[in-house]
């Protein structure tokens, strides 16, 4: 063909040329080929046809670039498949492996028509990129930085990063504000886009602002509605992760996805699956604080009650001892006294009885000896010249004698004297020994 063109020097139409190129290319690349490329741009028209700009970069420098197309019918099929496998939609910046037919069109020129995309390659690419980001964060000491911040005892003042239009946004505030314990939270929204191209920069900006107001808040929360799991890629990017790591407040994420943690989740202080879960976490934080306080209160109450009981008991027993011991002492002494009194009485009685007995005997003896009693028994006392007469020979005839009887006295004159026998005289004398004087005195 070339030979024809050069020898005949006949000019060809552009169409003829392009058509020739098309035939040559079709001949040279008869099959479909697997190609690795990065999507630089992607646009779909109203009919659903998709037009891409594919590039290959080496050290951020573009070394190859080609237009590509995915026809509407293919695109619907492929984008579904891709999303299901990667949780991401096909978008610029992504590296894909595509099955392409090399195409040259007389009017539109060179392009690749994409027939298939292998999501596993993209998954691998994403994982590799993610791993690189994590490794970089680790090296820079950012991976555990936010986790190192202490979570306040009562996370009550909350800076929220979200989009008011995001699903789950309402649920989050609803759950916080109507918690069953009646806790009040202070929450301030720092609006940001949480999906799409501009999400990363928008969230970073919100985090910066929160950093400025760090003294007003206890925690920062990034929430994004649950349900849709697409377009999470911004949460795997280094810049956002680094911003979260460096946030002066503990960051809690509720990005709402089921897949493996995003890098944002990894560097965050606490990772929750959904906005609702974040709200629950915050409520439970306050709850556990209150439980703790009530537990302390009960401990103090129990301990104090016990202590007071102890003291009361001690006081009571002390009081009882004080009341009891003197009583005991007194009653012991009293008993002794009573005993002493008793024995004293017995002793006295005995002594008295003994004395009185002796006295009785003495009295009796005395009574027996009393001259009156002697006289009573019929004896009499005779006196002469005032002296008791014991010997008849001492008085002569005609002498006067007094005789004292039990009752009365007789004065008589002696007529006849008769001698009594000696022994009778002695017996009479013995009868009242020593009583001669005394008996005379008694009269």
């Amino acid at each position, binding site marked *: 063909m070339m030979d024809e063109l050069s020898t005949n020097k006949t000019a060809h139409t552009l169409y003829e040329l392009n058509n020739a190129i098309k035939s040559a290319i079709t001949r040279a690349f008869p099959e479909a080929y697997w190609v690795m490329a990065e999507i630089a741009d992607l646009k779909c028209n109203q009919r659903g046809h998709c037009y891409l700009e594919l590039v290959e970069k080496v050290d951020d420098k573009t070394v190859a670039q080609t237009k590509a197309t995915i026809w509407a019918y293919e695109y619907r099929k492929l984008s579904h498949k891709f999303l299901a496998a990667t949780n991401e939609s096909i978008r610029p910046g992504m590296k894909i492996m595509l099955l392409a037919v090399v195409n040259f069109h007389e009017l539109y020129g060179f392009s690749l028509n994409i027939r298939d995309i292998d999501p596993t390659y993209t998954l691998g690419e994403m994982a590799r990129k993610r791993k690189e980001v994590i490794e970089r964060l680790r090296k820079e000491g950012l991976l555990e930085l936010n986790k190192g911040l202490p979570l306040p*005892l*009562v996370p*009550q*003042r909350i800076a929220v990063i979200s989009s008011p239009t995001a699903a789950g946004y309402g649920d989050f505030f609803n759950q916080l504000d109507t918690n069953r*314990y*009646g*806790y*009040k*939270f*202070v929450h*301030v929204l720092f609006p940001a886009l949480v999906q799409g191209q501009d999400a990363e920069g928008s969230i970073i900006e919100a985090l910066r602002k929160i950093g*400025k*107001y760090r003294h*007003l*808040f206890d925690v920062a929360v990034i929430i994004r509605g649950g349900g849709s799991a697409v377009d999470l890629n911004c949460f795997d990017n280094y810049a956002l992760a680094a911003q979260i790591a460096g946030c002066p407040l503990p960051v809690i994420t509720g990005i709402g996805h089921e897949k493996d943690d995003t890098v944002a989740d990894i560097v965050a202080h606490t990772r929750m699956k959904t906005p609702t879960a974040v709200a629950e976490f915050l409520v439970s934080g*306050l709850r556990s*604080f*209150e439980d703790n*306080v*009530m537990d*302390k*209160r009960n*401990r*103090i109450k129990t*301990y*104090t009650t016990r*202590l*007071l009981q102890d*003291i009361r008991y001690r006081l009571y027993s002390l009081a009882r001892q004080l009341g009891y011991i003197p009583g005991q002492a007194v009653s012991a002494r009293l008993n002794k006294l009573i005993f002493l009194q008793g024995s004293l009485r017995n002793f006295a009685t005995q002594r008295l009885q003994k004395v009185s007995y002796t006295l009785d005997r003495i009295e009796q003896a005395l009574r027996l000896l009393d001259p009156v009693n002697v006289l009573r028994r019929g004896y009499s006392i005779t006196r002469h010249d005032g002296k008791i007469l014991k010997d008849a020979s001492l008085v002569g005839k005609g002498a006067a004698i007094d005789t004292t009887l039990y009752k009365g006295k007789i004065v008589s004159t002696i007529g006849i004297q008769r001698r009594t026998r000696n022994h009778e005289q002695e017996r009479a004398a013995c009868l009242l020994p020593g009583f001669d004087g005394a008996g005379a005195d008694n009269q």
Partner: protein
Amino acid sequence: MELEQIISEIETEDVDVDVLAGKVKRAVLLVKLCKTRLRNAEEEVKKIMAEIEVDSNEDSELAEDDEPAV
């Protein structure tokens, strides 16, 4: 936490009854304070809002100033 301190004081030390009464009174006050703080945040809201509003006004002024240059 002051409550913890009170507990350790009354549980480990031999407290006089009068001192105990004082500490229990303080503990009751603290518990009440905690419960109140958990359920009332109006003051805190006002404070935060006031501060942020002042700042955001400044921000918007700055933004307006910047705009012609951009």
